[in-house]
């Protein structure tokens, strides 16, 4: 049978954000896959260098629309590391609570998207309906549903009342019950099993070699979670297990995410019942002394890394963001080979891609109206030339 190259993206119903997968198929089987990233580059990292630390909190929140809080947590943490700020325990607990609520809504969102990609729209409608409860909770606690403006360097900006604690606990009860129902569906519905089992297999060795992160890594049976291995915020005090799956496939990711929702519910309950009294933030200076720091968090999609270098002013010299999708996109190109056309959306959606978080370099020439992606060597030469030109650095 003849080989046909079909473009998946930049505009494709399976992709919620523009990214390009060139897929060569023979009949229904994929023989080659090529990923081109860079379609949603927004110049954020340059923007960080032009704004003060306080302004940057709000920009980091806008790196991603789903895991907005984990990015701002990361940035605040990196700044706090350089400042050497000691945060009050209540502030840490509230920050952790937000991170976990974000994981709840992100995983419920993924469940719906996965359902949609396999044609199970009913799952999409139901799980997104439950996700609304988490978003309502966000609105209750922070005033906003998506970008919360809740984090700040040195703690969080709003305290939580006893009534709100009760509302969180009430929502957790509902979500726990609903998630158990979804787990029943995910483990027993034949069409879901047929579409996910044995699809997108990434072996443990390949997962380590290709630097997979997050639920994709844990579905490949690697017990790694930043929250457990390198605890930040209040995670060191919380009881929870790292969920892994040995099925290595998309179904494993579904199970890992569903069980993580239950772990998160457990954590949120613990935090609400053992909320320490006291202050929620400490005052920090506006200017950050020279230094550099790396902060890591476990975003819902995987390990998120921020590297910050300060130069003694109130603006950062450099902030590098390594979003989880960038780490995971490598294994997508690998797992696509040998799969079926029908499995493309599921494999791509399996890592819960967030292209907006990931994209960094795309060269656009406005006068010539051309766009090109730079290779590593070109980038390196460009950066050397640029830094030599800029004497002040």
């Amino acid at each position, binding site marked *: 049978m003849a080989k*046909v*190259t*079909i473009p998946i993206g930049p505009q*494709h*119903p*399976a992709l919620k954000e523009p990214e390009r997968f060139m897929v060569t*198929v023979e*009949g*229904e089987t994929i023989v080659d896959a090529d990923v081109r990233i860079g379609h949603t580059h927004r110049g954020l990292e340059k923007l960080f260098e032009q704004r003060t630390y306080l302004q940057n909190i709000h920009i980091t929140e806008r790196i991603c629309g789903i895991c907005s809080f984990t990015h701002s947590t990361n940035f605040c943490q990196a700044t706090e590391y350089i400042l050497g700020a000691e945060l009050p325990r209540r502030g840490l607990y509230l920050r952790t609570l937000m991170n976990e609520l974000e994981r709840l809504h992100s995983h419920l969102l993924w469940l719906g998207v996965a*359902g*949609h*990609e*396999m*044609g*199970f*729209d*009913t*799952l999409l*409608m*139901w799980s997104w*309906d439950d996700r609304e409860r988490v978003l309502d909770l966000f609105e209750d606690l922070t005033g906003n549903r998506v970008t919360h403006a809740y984090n700040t360097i040195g703690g969080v900006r709003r305290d939580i009342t006893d009534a709100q604690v009760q509302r969180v606990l009430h929502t957790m009860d509902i979500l726990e019950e609903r998630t158990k129902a979804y787990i029943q569906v995910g483990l027993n*519905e034949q*069409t*879901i099993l*047929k*579409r996910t089992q044995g699809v997108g297999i990434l072996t443990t060795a390949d997962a380590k070699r290709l630097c997979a992160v997050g639920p994709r890594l844990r579905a490949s049976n690697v017990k790694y979670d930043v929250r457990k291995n390198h605890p930040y915020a209040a995670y060191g005090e919380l009881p929870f297990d790292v969920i892994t799956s040995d099925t290595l496939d998309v179904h494993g990711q579904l199970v890992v995410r569903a069980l993580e929702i239950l772990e998160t519910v457990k954590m949120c309950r613990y935090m609400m019942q053992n909320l320490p009294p006291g202050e929620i933030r400490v005052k920090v200076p506006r200017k950050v002394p020279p230094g550099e720091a790396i902060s890591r968090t476990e975003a819902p999609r995987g390990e998120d890394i921020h590297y910050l270098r300060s130069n003694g002013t109130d603006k950062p010299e450099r902030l590098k963001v390594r979003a989880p999708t960038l780490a995971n996109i490598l294994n997508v190109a690998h797992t696509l080979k040998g799969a*079926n*056309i*029908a*499995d*493309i*959306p599921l494999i791509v959606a399996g890592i819960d891609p967030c292209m907006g978080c990931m994209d960094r370099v795309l060269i656009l020439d406005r006068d010539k109206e051309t766009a090109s992606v730079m290779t590593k060597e070109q980038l390196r030469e460009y950066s050397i030339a640029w830094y030599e030109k800029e004497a002040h650095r």
Partner: protein
Amino acid sequence: MNGLESIIYMLVFPGFLFLTSFAFACQYIDRKLYARFQKRVGPPFLQPVADFIKLLSKEDIVPKAADRTMFTAAPIVGLAAVLTAFIFIPVLALHALIPSFEGDLIMVLYLLTIPSLAIFMAGWSSGNPFGQIGGMRAVVQMLSYEIPFFLALLGPALVVGSWSLGKILDYQLGGMWLVLLAPLGLFVAIITLQGKLERLPFDIPDAETEIVGGPMAEYSGRRLALFRAMLDIEMVVGAALIVTLFLGGYDLIISFSDLPWYLPYLVNGVVFFLKVLLIVGILALIKAVVARYRIDQMVSLSYRWMIPLSVAQIIVIVALKFGGWF
């Protein structure tokens, strides 16, 4: 049947005009039920009509790479085939009017195959890689659901000993509905009808998240409107065929001999279309509770389960027939 009556039968009731409106009503019921299953509100009653008119008024584009004749012919031929198929289904008890003849069941089945071929031709001639893959999938899928569908509908014909829809219906009047003898056949027919209509879990040829609507990817405006209408009418015709063969058509078991002459016809008509709506409801329920199969899984489901089940049904019927049960 004289000339005027035939024209009314074909164009007004239960032909073109009524059938189209009823197909829109079925689409509404289907969409509304699907929405309610998903905790959504669903469309208002006239939404299908509004969608149809909107599509008719939209710009109609034929891609440069497409084969213009084939691209235009595909929806028209498909629509004509399903409209013709409905004429042979006995909707009312007006036997004099129904153009029933020995073999019209095969005729209807044949006409119902044409839409699948039209979808294949549409995808193949559109010059779009998604359309071509969708077209290939449509043919592969057709080869797997047509066989069990035909075998399932062979059951009632075997019981009655006739290929005529009218005779099969006559046999069932008074309560001897063939679902009693062929429940497995009904089950297989409904599942494979879902495949024939390319609805979940068998909407593989136009899987939106995989191949962007497949054969429909390049269609827009009037041609797309005709394709949509074709699929709606095909659903009605398929459901009506199943109702006629298994659920006793317009039969309601009760006799109406005391009523004025026109009332039984009215009741019969309502009963028939309510039964069609029941089938449509079942199809909507199936659509709401499953995920999409892959094409290879669909083929294996068909050959491993649907065909053996329909063959088992036929064996049972033949055994009963030789045993002298009916």
